[in-house]
């Protein structure tokens, strides 16, 4: 029995090394079946490199406004109030909420950039985002119309440029 435990431990250790080294494997391995399985396990185990990609260092900002009661309401920031609440009070829920919103809005921007706004509007991520925006940021009241703005920071010029903007009647 002890020998069996030793062998299983050894095998797990070897697989650890393979999983941990996944990011440094050549592209052909990453595209293979073994590579995809390793990537999946890598994600489940939480192996990852923090902020090693330029993309993860991109500063973004999002805002929205609703058209209801016959007028456009003032534009509101989506992420800053949540993050500022976390900063001020240490409320982890606000931080998690901020991460969720940030993930959703970045998701629709990715699809819009790749496939255009029309395709984005047909996607599941888009439906999730709009549904979440109405539920969490408008007390689940469906507005007549809404507009979303997504900005990306240009570090060199220290400016923000509008990367995505759309209006929709939900």
């Amino acid at each position: 029995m002890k020998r069996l435990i030793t062998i299983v431990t050894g095998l797990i250790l070897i697989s650890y090394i393979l999983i941990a080294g996944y990011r440094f494997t050549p592209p052909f391995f990453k595209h293979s079946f073994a590579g995809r399985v390793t990537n999946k396990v890598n994600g489940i185990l939480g192996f990852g490199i923090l902020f090693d990609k330029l993309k993860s260092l991109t500063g973004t900002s999002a805002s929205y406004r609703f058209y209801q009661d016959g007028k456009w309401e003032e534009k509101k920031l989506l992420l800053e109030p949540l993050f500022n609440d976390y900063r001020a009070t240490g409320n982890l829920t606000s931080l998690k909420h901020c991460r969720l919103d940030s993930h959703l809005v970045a998701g629709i921007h990715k699809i819009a950039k790749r496939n255009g706004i029309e395709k984005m509007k047909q996607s599941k991520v888009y439906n999730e985002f709009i549904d979440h925006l109405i539920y969490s940021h408008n007390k689940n009241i469906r507005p007549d119309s809404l507009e979303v703005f997504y900005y990306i920071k240009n570090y060199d010029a220290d400016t923000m440029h509008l990367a995505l903007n759309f209006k929709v009647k939900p």
Partner: protein
Amino acid sequence: MDRFLTDFQKYIENHFFYDKNIIWFRRCVYSLLLIKMLFIWPEISMFYRHAISVRTGSFMPHKLIFLPIVHHYYKLYWFIACLILILSLFYKKNRWLYIAVFIVSINYIFIANKATNSGDGLLNFLIFMLIFVREGASKYSINQMINNALLILIQVYFCLFYLSNAFGKIIKPLWRSGDYFKHAWNLYYYANPSFIPHWFFNPTLQFITAWSVMIFEFIFPVLIWFKPYKKPLLAIGILFHFGIAILLSLPDFGLTMAIVYILFYDFKQTPDNDLSGSAISDSN
């Protein structure tokens, strides 16, 4: 091959962990999950609503929470889940309770879907491993060897995590030049300007900080196994992870990593937690 396996087996058997390490490690891991679950409570409706739009329920234990019948009772489910966690802090050696905690942990990951980070994945992995770890294993027993094997696997996992991060960083020019911090300190929703001192924006200090991080991540997995280096490395590591938790707004990730340090710490030997007599000597 047989000789190698014998040596490896001896290493596992002799690399014992005190009960105090196991008990505190378990308490801290479960407490962190409980804290995260309590924090999420005020917004549970929002997270649950979002989670059921991407998940479907089944009679598998970890997906019970998404069954349509539970849609009206998810707050009660969350309350019971928190109670399970509180119970697990006090009841020892109850494997069913440990399994229930793991199911709760998966529920948490599903509920906080898309708002999770690698800290949640790591915590879930630790909770899974803790199902099989048993406090008070008797000397020379199989249980003690299983404990050792699992806890060594967690330690090695942790060291590999550092090594892969160190390699991942050192191959990036952004890290080698220290410019990473120029971006990171301006990164919205991560960098916490309330705590970042002004002198952290100095390019020379950014360069020094970047290399200090990479050197630490390289030397920790190598030197932590040698007793004279343990305490200084653990002290630096705790500062490092608290720094990540506060400055980069990753409190759950930073705390999870810091909790793993309990396994590396040598608690002062007392008759209660001294298992050294169970170590199998080379002559055996």
